[in-house]
């Protein structure tokens, strides 16, 4: 099912949570809504579900205007951050709930068969008789997904689905959700504030800030060509160095860099820790190492430039370097945004 948001607006009391957001989600696509807290991502998801009504604009499911369809008739599957499993029901009863309250009559055997299928899909065979308090967090979230899938939703919506889980479980569940999505081909929209999760899982990432979409595209597009300094900063570790731009050339501590398209005046140069190299001499920005942080996959240097700005960069694990060493930062790649 294709979903279209058309100039959707939502205001809470005096606070405008969502400003005219338009978004198209193709049938079968897996899309991440990524943004910091307060960016309106959860509000957008809840409006698609029908748990909030939009104050303006339209939400279309396929060709049908779903803006005013109440949540229970909208045919969405929703997975909550804290699972929202019914504590007084067993795992099997939780999964069967949607079928039991549905207007479509099913026999007990039909419901039991479907529940067994779903338990197999989420790899929880044999746990049907447990209560939610008797299983782990990762298992609870899989039950929540099975429960949402039981009603054959047109769209699957997940609100920070892995936010309450620890890092290892989160990574496993992410891969597993991707597999289930590929198997079922159901249009899926999920909300996260974790850029790694969004990039790992989604076909397309929609980045939000202050109730507006700031950029959307494939993980490759948003990583390689961030549209604004906000996107650049939000997607990962960044260093910011101040520079001035004149006639498309940025100058930084005597170094000149190509800044085509950037207006004249003060500008910020953004670099990822991997965008810098450490050499003892040559073209670049002179710097002193202030700290070395050892990590399993390399060493991270914290350095101070001649003009007093700090930066961090990653070097291979065998690099011989210590705090106090002087050297040169070579710029491999960078992005310039007007300050």
């Amino acid at each position, binding site marked *: 099912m294709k979903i279209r948001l058309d100039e959707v607006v939502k205001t809470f009391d005096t606070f405008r949570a969502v400003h005219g957001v338009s978004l198209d989600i193709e049938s079968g696509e897996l899309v991440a809504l990524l943004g910091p807290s307060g960016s309106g991502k959860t509000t957008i998801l809840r409006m698609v579900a029908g748990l909030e009504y939009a104050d303006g604009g339209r939400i279309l499911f396929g060709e049908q205007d779903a803006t005013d369809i109440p949540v229970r008739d909208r045919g969405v599957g929703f997975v909550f951050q804290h699972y929202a499993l019914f504590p007084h029901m067993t795992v099997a009863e939780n999964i069967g*709930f*949607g079928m039991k309250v549905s207007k479509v009559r099913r026999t007990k055997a039909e419901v039991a068969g479907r529940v067994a299928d779903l338990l197999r899909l989420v790899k929880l065979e044999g746990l049907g008789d447990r209560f939610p308090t008797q299983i782990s967090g990762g298992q609870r979230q899989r039950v929540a997904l099975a429960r949402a899938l039981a009603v054959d939703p047109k769209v699957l919506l997940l609100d920070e689905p892995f936010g309450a889980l620890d890092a290892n479980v989160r990574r496993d569940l992410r891969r597993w959700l991707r597999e289930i999505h590929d198997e079922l081909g159901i249009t899926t929209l999920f909300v996260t504030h974790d850029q790694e999760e969004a990039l790992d899982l989604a076909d397309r990432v929609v980045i939000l800030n202050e109730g507006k979409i700031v950029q959307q595209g494939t993980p490759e597009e948003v990583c390689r060509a961030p549209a604004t300094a906000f996107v650049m900063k939000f997607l990962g570790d960044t260093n910011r160095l101040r520079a001035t731009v004149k006639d498309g050339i940025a100058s930084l501590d005597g170094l000149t860099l190509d800044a085509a398209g950037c207006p004249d005046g003060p500008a910020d140069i953004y670099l990822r820790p991997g965008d810098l190299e450490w050499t003892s001499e040559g073209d670049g920005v002179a710097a002193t190492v202030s700290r070395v942080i050892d990590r399993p996959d390399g060493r991270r240097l914290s350095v101070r430039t001649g003009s007093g700005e700090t930066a961090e960069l990653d070097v291979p694990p065998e690099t011989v370097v210590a705090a106090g060493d002087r050297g040169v930062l070579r710029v491999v790649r960078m992005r310039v945004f007007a300050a």
Partner: protein
Amino acid sequence: MTRRRVLPGLPLSLGITLFYVGLIVVLPLGALVFHAASLGPEDYWRVVSSARAVASYRVTVLSALAATAFNLVFGLALAWVLVRYQFPGKRLVDAIVDLPFALPTAVAGIALTALFAPNGWFGSVLAETGVKVAYTPLGIMIAMSFTSLPFIVRTVQPVLEDLDPTLEEAAQTLGGSDRSIFLRVILPLLMPALLAGLSLSFARSLGEFGAVIFIAGNQPMSTEITALLTFIRLEEYDYQAAAAIASVLLITAFVMLAFTNLLQARALRHTARS
């Protein structure tokens, strides 16, 4: 080596509380049972199964059941309104709920009698439709439900406040109607609290004395409650008969509390960890 405890003072606090419970709860009850038992089985049975006593059990238990059933519906609705809606005067209503606890029950009884007497505000209107409240079992029921209403509201209210709103949202996204969400999700989660409130309300109604005797009319065989019959026997200096009749109330309350505890354990079985 003795096991070290994290919190100090267990022997002391345990000792004091057990002594206190023994002194103010177990000792009087023990004396009651002792007095009743001193009658001997035949006399005991004769006293507790006399026609007047049996009639008093019937009116007491039936009125208490009716009052509890009324409070179940009205108390649940009141708790719901107080938790789920904002309206002017909400805090005042919330405070008024506790009034039956604070008011001397005799005052409540006199006030209710004045209202429901045939020449009272409510009574005169009801009399035109042929309904008599004062000096009938209906009056007993009203007095009982008045004094026991706070139990249900105050046990259900905190549980309702803590109910996770995402449970209802989840049920909605799964297609549940308001009715099925209430019956299948909310009510089962409120059940342990409701049972606790019901048993307290019923136990209080069984033993209610002050509020009831003013409105009941106290006619033997029809509107005489068991607690009053006990009191009458006491006034006649027939302590053993009084204790025997009171022991029936005691046993009824005890059995009922044990039964609701069992139901509660069943309703809470999902909280047990494996």
